[in-house]
């Protein structure tokens, strides 16, 4: 009887009936917590898996177009939260969850996802020093992307003001929660359309969940693709986000980012005054060099110097003359002494000496030639005999040759 009244479904009709009951919307947009098993990433791009807990399991499918936004690669045994709508797969008559989003559930899973993305991007070279853009030494405009509330903006502005006040373009950015990643990306893109010459991307400290936005792939890629250098200052000194690795410079804190971004005004003032001192010192030295060169040259053409030189020459001439004179005197003395010596000798052999010793000298007249031998004289010759004190005129009346010796 029941058969008559209720009618008979075909399998397909029944399945459709169940499906229509299940898909009224009551089971749409549900978050379900569970552990992945039987995970298959099919070559079609769709992912098939089951999520289960101690008592139950649920078939899941994630279509390719939803899987594209996954921030990590699901693995067997991973604890996840899945968001989806219930559906019935008519061919097999099973209900399943069409998963639209999936997140790691719990800190352990977040770390796993973090490591996965980090490795993937590292392999792609996104962290490579080759891609790091140099920061401008003297930025004129700094883009700051951070939360409008909280201490981060205040810290950055305070440090910048103290060190070196510049123009700042602040873009309010969500740094926590569901939409953080998207907000960060759009801030980076917006700042890239402005004339800022460096960007500080900042956020205060927090748990890995709080900082998660900075660990998402879209943020990493956006930082990597930024035309303008980015300083990442997310969390505390010990927190490293993926964003930190991709950024051109990682600062341990937002305040540190501000310090890195601009030079210190006082240091610059010191540098300038050192340069000024150098200029002045160099110029002074240059001028005094020139001056001493000039006085050097002047002294070489000074007329007083000429006079002095003439005087010197005159003195030299005098000196020479004096030397000459004294030399001549000495020569005379020597000659005089020589003369005296010779005169003495001459005296000794002089005929006058012979006379004074009592001998006489005979001279033949008229020519007064000395008579030296007997042959010098003839009988009747007139002769003069000289003695010490007079002369005797005689005529020779005889001569005789004698041998005295």
């Amino acid at each position, binding site marked *: 009887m029941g058969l008559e009244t209720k009618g008979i479904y075909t399998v397909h009709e029944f399945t459709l009936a169940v499906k229509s009951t299940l898909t009224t919307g009551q089971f749409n947009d549900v978050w379900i917590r569970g552990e992945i098993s039987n995970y298959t990433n099919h070559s079609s791009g769709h992912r098939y898996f089951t999520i289960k807990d101690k008592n139950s399991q649920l078939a899941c499918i994630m279509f390719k177009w939803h899987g594209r936004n996954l921030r990590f690669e699901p693995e067997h045994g991973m604890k996840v939260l899945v968001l989806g709508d219930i559906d019935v797969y008519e061919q097999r008559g099973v209900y399943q969850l069409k998963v639209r989003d999936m997140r790691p559930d719990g800190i352990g899973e977040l770390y796993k996802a973090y490591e996965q993305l980090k490795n993937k991007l590292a392999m792609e070279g996104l962290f490579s020093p080759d891609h790091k853009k140099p920061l401008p030494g003297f930025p004129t405009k700094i883009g700051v992307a951070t939360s409008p509330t909280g201490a981060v903006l*205040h810290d950055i502005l305070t440090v910048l003001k103290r060190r070196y006040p510049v123009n700042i373009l602040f873009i309010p950015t969500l740094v926590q929660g569901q939409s953080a990643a998207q907000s960060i990306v759009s801030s980076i893109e917006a700042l890239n359309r402005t004339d800022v010459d460096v960007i500080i991307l900042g956020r205060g400290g927090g748990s890995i969940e709080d900082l998660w936005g900075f660990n998402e792939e879209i943020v990493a890629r956006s930082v990597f693709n930024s035309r303008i250098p980015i300083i990442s200052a997310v969390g505390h000194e010990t927190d490293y986000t993926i964003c930190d690795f991709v950024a051109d410079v990682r600062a341990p804190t937002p305040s540190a980012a501000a310090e890195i971004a601009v030079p210190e005004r006082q240091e610059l003032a010191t540098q*300038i005054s050192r*340069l*000024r001192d150098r200029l002045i010192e160099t110029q002074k030295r240059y001028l005094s060099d020139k001056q001493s060169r000039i006085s050097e040259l002047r002294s070489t053409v000074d007329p007083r110097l000429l006079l002095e030189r003439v005087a010197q020459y005159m003195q030299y001439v005098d000196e020479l003359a004096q030397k000459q004179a004294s030399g001549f005197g000495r020569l005379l003395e020597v000659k005089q002494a020589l003369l005296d010596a010779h005169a003495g000798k001459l005296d000794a052999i002089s005929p006058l000496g012979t006379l004074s010793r009592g001998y006489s000298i005979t001279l033949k007249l008229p020519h007064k030639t000395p008579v030296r031998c007997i042959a010098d004289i003839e009988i009747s010759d007139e002769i003069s005999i000289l003695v010490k004190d007079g002369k005797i005129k005689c005529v020779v009346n005889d001569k005789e040759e004698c041998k005295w010796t």
Partner: protein
Amino acid sequence: MDMSFEESLTELEGIADKLEIGQLSLDESLLLFENGIKLVRECNKKLKNAKQNVEKLILENGDIKTEPFDVQE
């Protein structure tokens, strides 16, 4: 004229180097020295007059706009 601080500083360093190397005529060196001192003044003025100006960037239907931003101390 209107050089950035960075350009002024670079030029100033260049002048100091040139003067130190020497081999300049008196006129050249005096001219350089004068320029250098002028740059020192400009740099100091720029440093002294540096001011913090904060603007807020707003996205509106894909357009970017800026408005003054008051910093609460």
